[in-house]
């Protein structure tokens, strides 16, 4: 049974990768969009400071990795609305391999994009070091999987593509602007900074920024990976349980609290960080260090 599930997952992963590579929209949003952001942020904020470029790259990698949240939710809803899932339902394949294959394929597709972005930062914008590559790869795996699984929950609790897009927009805004990936958290009032500790995106962004600037510490890595890994397990299991094959199977409105259930691990970690404040302190330390580097003309120059 387990062997079948693995075989089915791998077969579908192979096809999903091929389908994604044939999809221009996927290539645009996964590769081109983060690259545009990279160019934009470097021009606006990072010019002349290799340290800042490393930091910006951390945010860009976060955007790239989080993209699975949006892409997979839309893909699953499309498959359900077009009646593609119901054809799979006839075959001896369960929801688990269907969901797992989309997560695995997304990870495998994101890895080369991450390396392309790192290479652009290194060779085009003269970033002086590669960062902690093993930690970056670990975060790419755990981050892309977690955000993909959260996207799959959204796909299962929404009844139409329109609903999916609305929820995605709202959640994406939070992930994008209240994580430190695009806007430094230190510009916000302290109460907002503390609130961001409840978002999975903040863990990923701080983790990537530490990894690309080579500042990552074991306690930080442990916190980030544990939070995202628990988030992944909970989100995957919830998305598997509430998976719907048929377009006409509607999800009861009150059951949408499942989305909140997936956030429980981040709520727990948020409460811990809210009281402990270690992660927020690291964010402030990183920004101070960047400012000093700017003042002294760049650490690596």
């Amino acid at each position: 049974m387990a062997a079948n599930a693995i075989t089915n997952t791998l077969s579908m992963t192979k096809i999903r990768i091929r389908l994604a590579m044939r999809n221009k929209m996927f290539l645009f949003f996964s590769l081109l969009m983060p690259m545009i952001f990279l160019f934009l942020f470097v021009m606006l904020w990072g010019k002349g400071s290799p340290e800042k470029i490393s930091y910006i790259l951390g945010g860009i990698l976060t955007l790239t990795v989080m993209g699975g949240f949006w892409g997979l939710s839309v893909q699953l809803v499309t498959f359900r609305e077009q009646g593609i899932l119901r054809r799979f339902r006839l075959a001896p394949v369960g929801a688990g391999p269907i969901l797992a294959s989309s997560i695995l394929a997304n990870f495998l597709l994101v890895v080369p994009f991450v390396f392309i972005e790192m290479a652009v930062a290194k060779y085009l914008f003269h970033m002086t070091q590669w960062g902690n590559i093993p930690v970056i790869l670990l975060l790419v795996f755990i981050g892309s999987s977690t955000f993909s699984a959260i996207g799959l929950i959204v796909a299962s609790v929404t009844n139409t593509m329109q609903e999916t897009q609305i929820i995605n927009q709202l959640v994406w805004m939070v992930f994008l602007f209240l994580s430190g990936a695009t806007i430094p958290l230190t510009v916000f009032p302290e109460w907002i900074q503390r609130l961001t500790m409840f978002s999975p995106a903040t863990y990923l962004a701080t983790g990537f920024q530490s990894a690309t600037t080579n500042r990552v510490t074991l306690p930080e890595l442990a916190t980030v990976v544990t939070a995202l890994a628990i988030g992944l397990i909970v989100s995957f299991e919830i998305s598997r349980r509430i998976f719907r094959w048929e377009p006409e199977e509607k999800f009861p409105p009150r059951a949408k609290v499942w989305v909140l259930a997936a956030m429980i691990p981040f709520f727990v970690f948020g409460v811990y960080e809210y009281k402990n404040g270690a992660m927020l302190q690291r964010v402030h330390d990183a920004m101070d260090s960047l400012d000093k580097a700017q003042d002294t003309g760049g650490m690596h120059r």
Partner: protein
Amino acid sequence: MTAIIEVQDLVKSYGAVEAVRGLTFRVDEGEVFGLLGPNGAGKTSTVEILEGMRTADSGRVSVCGLNPQSAGNAFKKQIGAVLQSTALPEKIQVKEALDLFADFYSEHTDTTALLERFQLTEKKNAFYKELSGGQKQRLALAMALVNNPKVVFLDEPTAGLDPQVRREIYGIIEELRRDKKTVLLTTHYIEEAEKLCDRVAIVDHGKIIKMGTPRELKQASAGTTRLEVRLAKPVAEGVLKGLEGVSDVRVVGENYAIYASRAPQAIVALVKYLEAENNELQGMEMYSPSLEDVFIELTGRRLRE
């Protein structure tokens, strides 16, 4: 004969709509069995319950001795199906799709041979979205047979296809019969049921209103020949029924369907009557008995109304 599909008192409702109202039938091994009825008769609901895609409100169903709802993969390995409404990703290639579904089964047929059999070899690298309706349906049939199933469900397999493609699909279903597959087919095409099915259940408003071989059903029909006539002025059904050679009359839309045991006498009597009444025969068509007659006789409606 061994029953491979058994349905007993099947009931399925969607809110206030009773789609299936106590259906009972059995399909024997190697038989091509047809559910014939208009849209909304409950055919698709019945088939999708048998495929394990929907739950019944009450009643009992069994396919290959298994309960489709609870038997899981053991059941799925026994069946193949062409669904009425389904699709594949737009940019999946024909061979990729077939290979993917083959991978789901521990034992499967050679996909290259399937492509050949369904005349899709030339299209093996084409994207799904590039296929014509007929090619998509041939691919759906190939996918339904990829696991060499015992039972094949075909839900309106030729709906919306042109006559040429329909004939191709008929040929494939004939092949399935020769291969001793058990086939449950739903259709609202009379000629499909007559041509392909060993037995037919005529379904209307969620109930079976007649069941038997096409020959048995046609023999049970009141008349042997159906005359469809259009008159300038309306007449009472009873009057037409009293004419020589006429066994029954039904009003079908604006026409009268006259079932005649002796057609020539009935036509002569009709013309004489119309002359005497200063009425006029505006049109007449003559049909050999068909399942359509049986349906009209039983429901007073055409199948495609």
